[in-house]
Every structure is written in C-alpha cells, then in structure tokens.
C-alpha cells in the first residue's frame, strides 16, 4: 500500500499577527512547525503503516525552509518526502496550491501506485479546509473529510467522521483522499536516528520545482490563483456581557442555548 500525506509548514501560533501595511504574516520571532492537523494526518498514515505495512510519502509545498517539516515527518517514520519549491509557487491561493499538489501527486502516480492521500483538515494559518477536497477533485478521487479514525478493508476504507452532531461512519472505495481532524493516538515523536539520517546525504528527500511537475507558471502561485486577497486585518475582540437571570434551571437552559448558538458546544 502507498500513502501520500500532505503537510504544511505554518507559524507556531494561533494568534497570527499581521503587518498592517502589507497585510502579510509577521513571521519574525515565530517558530515554524508542522501544521497540527497535518501531524494528525501523518500519525494516521503511520498507524496504517504499522498495522498493514505501507510506504508513506510526505509532500509539502513551500519555501526551502519547509524542508524541515519533511525531515521531521521522515524522522517520525515516513519513508520518502517531496518538497515542492519554486518561486513561481509563491502567493498561491488554495486553488493554485491544490493544483500544484495535484500535479505532484500525478508525478508520484506515474512512478508508483497510490492508494490513499491523507491531509490535515485545515492549516492554522489559513483555516480554509479547502486543500484536501480540492486535491480530491483534481485527481477525480472520492473524498472523506473530518475523519477521526480510519481503517482499511478489502479495497476500501472505513472512516469515522467527527461532525458537530455526532460521528458518521462511512465506507469509501480506494483510491481516495481523506482529511483528518483527530487520530486515535497522539502523534508520535521524531526518532533521532531517523532525523539525522533524513538530514544526511543518503536521505531520500526530493525537491521538485515547476518544471519537474510540468506545472505552467500561469497555473501556479499568484498567477494561477482565482482569488486575490484585498485586505487582511486582525479582528478586534470585544467583550459583551449577557446577564442570565431566573431559576438555576432557567439559567442553565439559557446558558446552554447561548453557547450552542455560538457553536461553542
């Protein structure tokens, strides 16, 4: 079985700070990490590898320093890694990003059979949750999103989707694209022997540019993006107090309703 896992390097913060003039992220002083949902996706793939035996390849698109998330993924147990790095890829929206990832997956498919693509539900810097589904559309594969557990059956997968109202169990034929938001166990830590191997000359990490994946400049990066960011800003947080009155039971009911309306429970 061959599994590809899509990972993204993101700033290690949930409180993104933006440059008010350029609208871009302020990255100074902020460490870059593997996107938490992608880490869960990788753990899901590695659990399948442990259980069934599989070759796991991680793919990331980003600047040269994004090599670190590939290296860490290899240290956690991935067998191969591909960094998609090219100046033409810069400034991509989700459409252009998923196109580029799709082209890389097509190149991988030309080399080997691919049974499953796993991605995190969403990245903490963009929160779009669009990449996985768009990659599935690009490949023409079925997709299962918001997965918290995954099992392989004969030629298909059984997935448990964590939805606001409960858990949905679905069966889907392979090959497929899955996005995950949880895993049955915490992501494993990197192993130092593998880390040093992945940093060394014998590391099987590959770097592909636009020419390698035959992606024309007009389809990638800013030029290939269907959306343009007009303005980015940090939302102002406001405090508003609701006074709840009545009996304890009424207050509890009111509180549950209020939290539910705000999608907090």
């Amino acid at each position, binding site marked *: 079985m061959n599994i590809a896992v899509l990972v993204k390097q993101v700033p290690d913060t949930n409180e993104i700070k933006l440059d008010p003039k350029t609208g871009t992220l302020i990255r100074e002083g902020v460490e870059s990490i593997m996107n938490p949902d992608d880490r869960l996706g990788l753990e899901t793939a590695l659990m399948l590898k442990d259980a069934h035996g599989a070759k796991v390849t991680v793919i990331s698109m980003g600047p040269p320093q994004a090599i*670190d998330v590939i*290296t860490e993924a290899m240290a956690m147990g991935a067998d191969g890694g591909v960094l998609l790095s090219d100046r033409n890829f810069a400034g991509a929206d989700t459409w252009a990003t998923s196109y580029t990832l799709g082209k890389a997956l097509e190149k991988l498919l030309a080399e080997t059979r691919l049974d499953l693509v796993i991605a995190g539900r969403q990245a903490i810097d963009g929160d779009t949750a669009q990449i996985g589904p768009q990659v599935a559309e690009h490949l023409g594969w079925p997709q299962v999103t918001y997965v918290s557990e995954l099992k392989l059956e004969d030629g298909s997968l059984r997935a448990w989707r964590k939805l606001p109202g409960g858990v949905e169990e679905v069966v889907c034929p392979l090959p497929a694209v899955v996005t995950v938001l949880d895993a049955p166990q915490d992501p494993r830590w990197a192993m130092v*022997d593998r*880390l040093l191997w992945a940093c060394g000359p014998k590391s099987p990490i590959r770097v592909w540019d636009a020419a390698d994946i035959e992606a024309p400049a007009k389809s990638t990066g800013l030029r290939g993006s269907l959306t343009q960011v007009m303005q980015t800003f940090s939302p102002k947080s406001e405090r508003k107090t609701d006074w709840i009155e009545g009996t304890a039971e009424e207050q509890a009911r009111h509180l549950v309703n209020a939290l539910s309306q705000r999608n907090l429970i």
Partner: protein
Amino acid sequence: MSKPALRSDPEKLLRQIISRFVAQEITPLARDMDESGKIPKELMRKIAQMRLFGMRYPVKGGGCGGNSTLYCIMSEELARGLLSLAAKVSKQCLMGTEHLYRFGSKEMHEKYFAPAMRGEKIGSFCLTEPEAGGDLGAVATTATKDGDEWVISGMKTWITNAPIADFFTVLCQTDRSKGVRGLNFFFVPRDTPGVRISPRFETLGTRTTDIAEVAFNDCRIPGEYILGEVGKGLKSLLSILADIRSMTAALALGLAKAAYETAFQYAKERQAFGKTINKYQLIQSKIANMATDIWAAELMLYETTRKIDAGLPAGKESMMVKYFATETACRCCDEATRIMGAYAYSMEYPAQRYFRDARFLLYGGGTHEVLQQNIARELKF
C-alpha cells in the same frame, strides 16, 4: 544539471523538536515529578522511543549517529524542563554505557547495551568513594584476578541511578603499587552476588535523581568483564572527561535559561509602585547580567563541543565551560528568586526548584575548587 541537495540543519531541528517535547511532555509534569521524586514510566518510554539514549553512538553500534554538539543540545533542552530528568537521560547516554559500548563483548552488547539504548536497562557509573572523589589516586575499591575471574571489593558512594541500575561500570584499583596507572573499569551486573545498594539518598534538589551507595563484597565477575586493557582505566576515563564536563555545562545552561525565562516573564507582568518591575533599573541590570552570562556560556559550550567533534583536545575548555556555565546557572537561579520575591519562595512556582537543583551541578564533573586548580595547571601557571 542536478540540483544541490536541500537538507535540514540537524542541530536546529533537533533543538526545536526536543524543545517542543519538553514543553508538551515534561514541563507540565515537572512539579509533580519533583515532589514525588518519580518519573512516570510512560515519559521514559517516550524518551526511549525518540532514541535519545543512543544519541552519541554510531548507527552501526546501535546508536543514532550523533556527536557531542547534538548530545549537548539534547541535554540543554531537557534541562529546561527538569534538570534531574535531563541528568538521568544524559548519564545513560554517556557514563552509564560508554565503557560497555567500547569494551564489552558481543554478548554483553546484546544482553546489556542494546536494551540500554531502548531504555529497558539502566547503566550506572561508579567512580566516587567515601575517601576518593577528584583524587583518583585514593580509589580503594580493588579488583583482584582469581583464575579466570575478577573479584571486586569496595564501596562507592554518590552513585547516580544506583537504586534503579541493572549494571554498573566500576572504577577499581588492580595494582596499588602503580597508583592511577593501576586503575581499570569493570562491568558488574546488579544481580552479581555481593552487590549491595543502600537506601536512596534524600537530597536538596534534583529529587527524581536516584542516588545511593553501592557496596561490592567480593563480587566475582568473568574475566571478560574488565572494560579495556589492564592499566588503561585512567586513559579511558580521561577520553570521556571532556564530554562529561561539556554535558554538565549543557545541563547548567538549560537550567540557567529556564530560570532566566521565568524571571523575565515575571518581571514583565509584576506591578509595583504603578509600573511593571521590568521598568526598574536594578531589575534590568539583573536581567542584562543573566542574559550576558548565558550567552557567554552558550558560546563557550558549543565552541568546546565542536572541538570535541573535530577530534581536537578540549580538556581545558571543557573544565572552563563546566565551571563557568555552572556558576552562571547558580547565579541565574539565585537572581531569579530575587526578581520574583516571595513567589520564588513558594513551592507553587518553579524558581525554588531551579535554585535547589542548581547545587547538583557544582559537584559532578569536578568541584569548582579542583577545576580552577586544574585550569591554572593547564595554563602552565
């Protein structure tokens, strides 16, 4: 035309990963571990799974293929979370297993070294005696050849990991007439008849560190359990002394950084007389001095480890950095308690733990009184 291979910087990435491990897995449990004196087995299992115990050993020998610099980065980062845990892991990587790795037979490797790399067996290094610490010429534990066996007799004290150890690397005198040239290391499994371990010592700090006395009462071990050539014990000890001292400096540096960061954050939040105390010059002076000393210790440490990694002599440098980094740790932990005032005196905050733990570093790898004397000697003074 082939593109140049793009690779991650192992030092930077290792530091990031261990730092994250400490933040997620060690720091939240540090107070409980310090108070109970126990490290959860699950935490040690994770450390073993990360293969940290094999940090210094070649891949072919069952290790990770790291070097002194990477090893010290690991020790430093772990010490930011809990010094005693960092010391436990660091000692297993070096003194607990080094002689076994270098001189043990294939069978000893399979039975002891490989499980030690997996964290399944613990090694302990027995050097200090009631009457012999830095003065190796005074080592009184003897190893006497009797047919195909060695007979070990004597008493070792302040032995880290002794209560939990599965095997000991023991410095013994094989020929008293030769002084330090009669010293040798021996491998003694814990279950050897005649091995007695005292109750665990109660200590001021590093409370998860298991320390005890070990008595060897006519312990008979196979002839092959001598670790190294006869009479070469001092040489093999000297060959890892720079590593031991650099590692101790790394532990000190990590602890100093933890104390500094705690005090730094506190000073930015604590209000006094209408403003946060970081606005006061006396507090600024303390922070500036701490940061300066930490930077100097860091530069000294990694300059020393790079020399070790290059195979260059680093005896003097390792003594200097062990001395300086430990004094830095003691100063920073002291200053942190002053910046934090009464809160540092409370068991609820980690500053008191840093203050207590720092004292542990003054003794391992040579007392500072002995080190200063040896540094002066190295300077041909």
